[in-house]
């Protein structure tokens, strides 16, 4: 049984090999002799010369790119700050001192009236009155009142 499976796998491998060999042979016979035309290099050379010289050192390029990015950021931030500052100034035509003098709200001090003992007493009485319950508003008493009426 084992021998049979080994035989089978061998035949599969040889079939794979045969197929691989056939593919290889077919491809090599088809394109194996193919060569690019002689003028291709000149075309490539012409195209390369048209191009700008590429930056071959990535480190050097990164070093050059970093300050530029930060410079652009700095310029943008300073422009924004300047615009903001100008806008604030436009809304604030008075000088800083005058602005503060006119813009700060002033609350006039009102002197409290001197309370007499009479006033105090009157106030207390009013407070007590307010605390007294309104009897006729209670529901139970109101029912009693109605029953009395009938």
């Amino acid at each position, binding site marked *: 049984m084992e021998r049979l499976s080994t035989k*089978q796998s061998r*035949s*599969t491998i040889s*079939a*794979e090999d*045969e*197929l*691989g060999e*056939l*593919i*290889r*042979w*077919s*491809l*090599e*016979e*088809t*394109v*194996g*002799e*193919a*060569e*690019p*035309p002689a003028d*291709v*290099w000149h*075309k*490539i*050379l012409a*195209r*390369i010369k048209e*191009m700008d*010289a*590429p*930056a*071959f*050192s*990535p480190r050097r*390029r990164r070093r050059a790119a970093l300050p530029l990015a930060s410079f652009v950021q700095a310029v943008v931030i300073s422009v924004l700050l300047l615009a903001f500052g100008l806008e604030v100034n436009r809304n604030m035509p008075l000088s800083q001192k005058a602005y503060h003098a006119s813009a700060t709200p002033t609350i006039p001090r009102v002197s409290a009236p001197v309370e007499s003992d009479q006033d105090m007493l009157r106030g207390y009485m009013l407070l007590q009155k307010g605390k007294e319950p309104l009897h006729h508003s209670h529901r139970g008493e109101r029912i009693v009142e109605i029953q009395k009426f009938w």
Partner: protein
Amino acid sequence: MHEPINEDAELVARIRCGDLDAFEALYHKYKRPLYQTALAITGDQDAAEEILQDCFVRAYAALGRVDASTSLSPWLHRIVINLSANWVNRNRQWPSALDEWIDRLIAGPIASPEHVVEALELRQIVREAIATLGFTQRATIVLFYLQGFSLSEIAYIFDCPVGTVKSRLHYACKALRKRLREDRRLAGELAYGTS
């Protein structure tokens, strides 16, 4: 694909210093396998030539980023495969320009006319079977069988895991075997994996 790696590193170092002769040497070193790969995938001489040109122009622009400590062949093939994929997407067909090549090769000194006819037919059958494969399977077959790249090199070229390459190769061979088995012109002559 075992080129002297140091030679590539040396050439890249010289190219980075602006030496165009070194770039020409690099071109002459790799032009044939790259052109043949493009031709085998596209089946069009003009397309293969254009791909070769574009490949070296792109390579020149990107030489600053390449790791020159290893062979440049997989890297250059990666560019060719990408360019071929673009071409195949633009021209979804298998042109018959390869017939010219077959005719030219057949015109060489081969034993007898019967052999010529047999070889021509067999080659055409296999070529047609390969042409029916999708782009990735076809390109994998070309890189593995024509250029002799290892599975890991092909994985690098396609930027995919080795397992994916194995699977593509397996299914490509399976599909080819099926098509060759079904081809009536080969009936009784070849029985690839019929067991």
